[in-house]
């Protein structure tokens, strides 16, 4: 996606100040949306709704976290949704052995796809967009083959389903997992050499290489990480819904890309934030919830079609809002 230049851009269109404002844009939008929901719908901030929204969106948060890292290196990963589907199938097939086996198998499946992506992109130097487009097809195909074209039941006798359906300290376990992943992700990005290398590579890959950074290894690691996170999301998918679903996960990649961009990460790489990616995910995820509540209000019924139109318009609105904020003279 990004061109690999080896000189300094004259003046990057978004400086750091711009990016920070952009990111604040997402928080402002998120708060406004929550406020809107709270005022308009009775049970919107009810415990049940909050918990189920968090439980459901944890999967997307994990996928978006991986996507954020990939995008920060200037890459992209279109295979995350299919990878999650594959992982859900694999982990479901092994769920009768137990949670650990299912979890390990699912994450390993994601890791394998990530490894393939990383090797092809970092060593064979194929463009990420095409590479992950291909592995998206491949992962989907493998998932369908492994699953025999239908959903694979998980075992309800082991603790496997606790991972997706259980609570810990009154808070959904998938949400705990997502929170932990984001904390680790933020530490990784901001407090380790690896994180800095990720940003440097996205900023100017050739320069990063000449500065002596292990570019290929970092890129490999980022795709592996993304694959593993998608795998984890797949395990949660299987565990939460009680089945490995080879056809699930379509469009997750675009959702994740949108969430990452809305979270203020530069699509060309080199600048990004872990925390605001979470805000971006919640922002986009809440839209579905809000639309369901709107239909429940009964003033009028929004068909699935109108929902698409509204979601598109909303995305445009948020992106334009960011644009205004980023351009506002100081």
């Amino acid at each position, binding site marked *: 996606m990004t061109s690999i230049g080896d000189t300094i851009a004259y003046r990057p269109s978004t400086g750091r100040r711009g990016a920070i404002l952009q990111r604040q844009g997402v928080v402002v939008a998120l708060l406004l949306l929550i406020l809107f929901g709270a005022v308009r719908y009775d049970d919107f901030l009810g415990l049940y709704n909050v918990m189920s929204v968090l439980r459901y969106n944890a999967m997307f948060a994990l996928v978006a976290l991986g996507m954020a890292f990939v995008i920060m290196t200037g890459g992209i990963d279109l295979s995350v949704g299919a990878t999650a589907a594959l992982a859900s199938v694999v982990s479901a097939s092994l769920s009768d052995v137990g949670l650990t086996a299912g979890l390990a198998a699912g994450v390993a499946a994601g890791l394998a796809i990530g490894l393939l992506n990383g090797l092809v992109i970092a060593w064979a130097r194929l463009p990420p967009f095409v590479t992950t487009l291909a592995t998206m097809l491949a992962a989907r195909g493998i998932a369908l083959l492994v699953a025999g074209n239908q959903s694979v039941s998980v075992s309800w006798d082991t603790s496997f389903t606790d991972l997706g359906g259980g609570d810990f300290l009154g808070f959904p376990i998938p949400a705990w997992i997502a929170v932990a992943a984001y904390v680790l992700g933020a530490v990784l990005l901001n407090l380790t050499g690896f994180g800095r290398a990720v940003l440097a590579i996205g900023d100017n890959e050739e320069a990063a290489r000449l500065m002596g950074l292990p570019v290929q290894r970092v890129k490999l690691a980022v795709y592996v990480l993304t694959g593993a996170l998608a795998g984890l999301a797949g395990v949660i998918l299987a565990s939460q819904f009680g089945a490995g679903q080879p056809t699930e996960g379509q469009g997750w990649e675009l959702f994740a890309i949108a969430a990452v961009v809305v979270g203020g990460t530069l699509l060309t790489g080199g600048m990004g934030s872990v925390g605001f990616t979470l805000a971006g995910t919640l922002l986009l995820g809440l839209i579905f919830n809000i639309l369901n509540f709107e*239909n429940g209000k009964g003033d009028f019924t929004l068909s699935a079609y109108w929902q698409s139109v509204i979601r598109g318009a909303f995305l445009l609105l948020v992106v334009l809002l960011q644009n205004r904020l980023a351009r506002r003279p100081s």
Partner: protein
Amino acid sequence: DDLPKLAEKPTYKVGFAQTESNNPWRLAQTQSMKDEAAKRGWQLVYTDANSSAAKQVADVDSMIAQHVDVIFLSPREEKPLIPAVMKAKKAGIPLFLIDRSVDANLAKPGRDYVSFIGSDFVEEGRRAGEWLIKATNGNAKIIELQGTSGSSPANDRKKGFMEAIAKTPGMQIVASQDGDFTRDKGRQVMETLLQAHPEATAVFAHNDEMVLGAITALEAAGRHPGKDITLVSIDGEKDGLQAIVDGKLGATVECNPRFGPGAFQAAADYAGGKKIPPIVVNKDHFYDKSNASESLAGSY
């Protein structure tokens, strides 16, 4: 039993969790639910899962959060929707499954949800198979156009059809490919399969849309559907019946989408304390040239 109760009220707030809205059948189903709600003056909370089982569970969650009285769920898949059924039960909301069911080993009608109202996909496939055996005197080289890989109607219709033809050795499937339940894909797949298997004498499509695509492909290849090749499919939509009237399609098994009246009545009866049978199988028609033209007007 431990099924949630439903109090008698003049009006209810009911949820209808639709799977997707990308084919005429689903549209007709949604319309029927909406019409019935309007007729009874009940408030309908309508959600659309956009072909995602996971989202459908989240949709049911948001209905529970909104304290609906009854949930009608048209589950996208058998297994992944189990959590939705269980959550509704736990929240004390009676739930009816319509048109597709969930895994009977994990959730039972009359115990975990009130009842399943719908068609039997396996039976549909079987009826199509039986008709084809008769129409071809037990001798056919069949091209099968399957529904979307992994979807339960595709799996079940295939299963029923295979069961039906298993006992007749002359019935032979020469090619079987995914046509994605769509007219365009059905046409393209048919075009290609016809090149590779010009010897085919019959087509079994998992739905009418694909068979209509196949007819276009056959005609473009100079074949005469209905004369030198026998076609059978499932759904009974208007264009399908028209094709029967035109003599191109042999027969189609109805899969009626008009669930509204039956489903709402079941809920009303349930509130009134009537015993609801755990499985209510729709009476599906069978259309061939004997009855297609008279049914055309009332089809969807």
